[in-house]
């Protein structure tokens, strides 16, 4: 029987070795001296040190990490929508000492710009393009910053929490038709302004759904009303226009 084959007692110690503080932390004073500012360090799950770096110091810190500390491989660039701000997270590796380091950069909300690290690690090219594609974060100094996975005409940045996968439409039950003017635009999804706190009310309500013939991201307005709506009930609330049939 396979189930009883080679039954050995469970070892008392776990497989993974004991967790020790990462040795890379001993080099942090040199890094802080190089960029002239103290860096908050925290340990994230998996015993990986994470440095919160100001956007102004990103390239200088990256150059120092690559040239002085041997972090030659940029593994990953991820964007993240933290609710009140966006952040870019870099994971860099030292192949000799097997150090892994995480750099977190909070994107300034006013400019929405971060300096590109493509001059430090050329592999940042596509990784930053993907982050721009999904979050709209602009990497200054990037030579070819355009969409990479999505279509060039796509409106909106889909990994933002404010993004709507389908536009709001008002479905007319009498005709089952939705006029293009009634399809809500992706125009509200372009920016990062006050529209980012759009409540997700899509999946409720019978009168709201996307007709198959509706252009997904048109440029029309949301019934001529202000966006975002206060509650989803207001979609039925105000009286319709004179020539418009009131939906049931």
């Amino acid at each position: 029987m396979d189930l009883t084959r080679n039954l050995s007692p469970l070892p008392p110690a776990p497989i993974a070795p004991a967790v020790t503080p990462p040795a890379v932390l001993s080099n942090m004073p040199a890094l802080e001296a190089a960029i002239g500012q103290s860096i908050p360090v925290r340990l994230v799950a998996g015993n990986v040190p994470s440095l919160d770096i100001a956007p102004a110091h990103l390239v200088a810190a990256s150059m120092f990490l690559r040239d002085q500390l041997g972090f030659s491989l940029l593994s990953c660039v991820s964007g993240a929508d933290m609710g009140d701000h966006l952040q870019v997270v870099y994971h860099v590796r030292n192949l000799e000492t097997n150090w892994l380091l995480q750099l977190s950069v909070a994107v300034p909300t006013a400019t929405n710009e971060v300096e590109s690290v493509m001059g430090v690690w050329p592999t940042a090219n596509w990784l930053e393009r993907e982050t721009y594609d999904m979050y709209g974060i602009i990497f200054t100094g990037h030579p070819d910053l355009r969409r990479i996975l999505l279509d060039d005409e796509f409106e909106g940045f889909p990994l933002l929490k404010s993004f709507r996968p389908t536009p709001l439409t008002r479905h007319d039950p009498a005709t089952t038709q939705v006029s293009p003017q009634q399809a809500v635009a992706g125009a509200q999804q372009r920016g990062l302004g006050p529209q980012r706190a759009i409540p997700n009310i899509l999946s409720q309500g019978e009168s709201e759904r996307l007709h198959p013939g509706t252009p997904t991201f048109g440029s029309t307005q949301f019934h001529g009303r202000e966006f975002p709506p206060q509650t989803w009930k207001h979609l039925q609330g105000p009286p319709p226009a004179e020539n418009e049939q009131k939906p049931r």
Partner: protein
Amino acid sequence: MATQFQNSTSENPEGLKTEEMILNMGPQHPSTHGVLRLVLSLDGETVTHCTPVIGYLHRGIEKILENRPYMGGIRYMDNADYLSPMLNETAYAGAVEQLMGIEPPRRAQYIRLITNEMQRIASHLVAVGTYMLDLGAFTPILYAFRDREGLLEMFEEIGGSRFNVNYMRVGGVLHDIPVGWLQRLETWLDNFDKSWQELNTLITGNEIFMKRTQGVGYIDPEQAIAYGMTGPIARASGVRYDLRVNKPYGAYHDIKTEMVVREDGDAFGRYMVRLYEMRESVRLIRTAMAQLPGGPICTRTPIALRPPRGETYFAVESSKGELGIYLISDGSEYPWRAKIRGPSFVNLQIVPELMRGHKMGDVVAILGSIDLVLGEVDR
């Protein structure tokens, strides 16, 4: 006619004028292994520039993961790199475990190692077989798919499905090993030793193959690291980087991997690394089967997984390179952010550098040696 031709050139002081030609390769092209489009600028037969256009298979897996519970996201990882779903699931499950501070039972970790190495063999078999098909040799893919079929059948027995296995769980694996499965795996491994020799003698040393791959698509180690190459591509260039060795996870702490490294840096070296990694995987599977411990296969986890607030980055050595998962948890049942660092996506970046200056006929030879899976590039 000939005189006319001569006259027309002799009138031009610079001789025959050529102009650059733009050639679209793909997205529907058998050698691109999916829906990849390469915009090639050709000067005669020489490629002067190559622009990959990707995104035809974009399904928004990262957005989907944000809208699924942690356990429900494992199934969507199958579709990222659809040639190695076991490895993808291990990466995602491992990231959630690291976030929650769970250690899977020892037996589960060994089963993970066995299935992961089986998947690596299967993926490399496809890579080698289709590469030879790209180069015009039809026979090796038949041998490769014949052997891979045995692995897929065993995946079906252990997980219930051949491709999208959905086998890993946060805290362990779904099913224990069925009765007789290990014996069948041993039989398969014994057969594969012969099949490996068969493939080796069939391909390696073949004069046409050597001439088409040796010296084609060379990457030096510094360039490979700068462009973020991982996996067999980096190891074929002499970069000693394998996460199973450099940053062991799970049962790789116990069972040491011998890294397959070559100094060639060309397409032939990448093929050789894949070929010998299959052999190394066979050795790992045999070792893990000999040491397979008993006990539970999954820790008890709550039905609704709510990892504490925080973030983590967990990477496994996939068949293509470093497959990393970056997770942010806000304390709820759904991941706030799940980023997939697909090795194929990063490895594709170097293709324009490799193509530059090569002849048109080498385009397929270079592209096939990268071993792309477009499901992982586009996600």
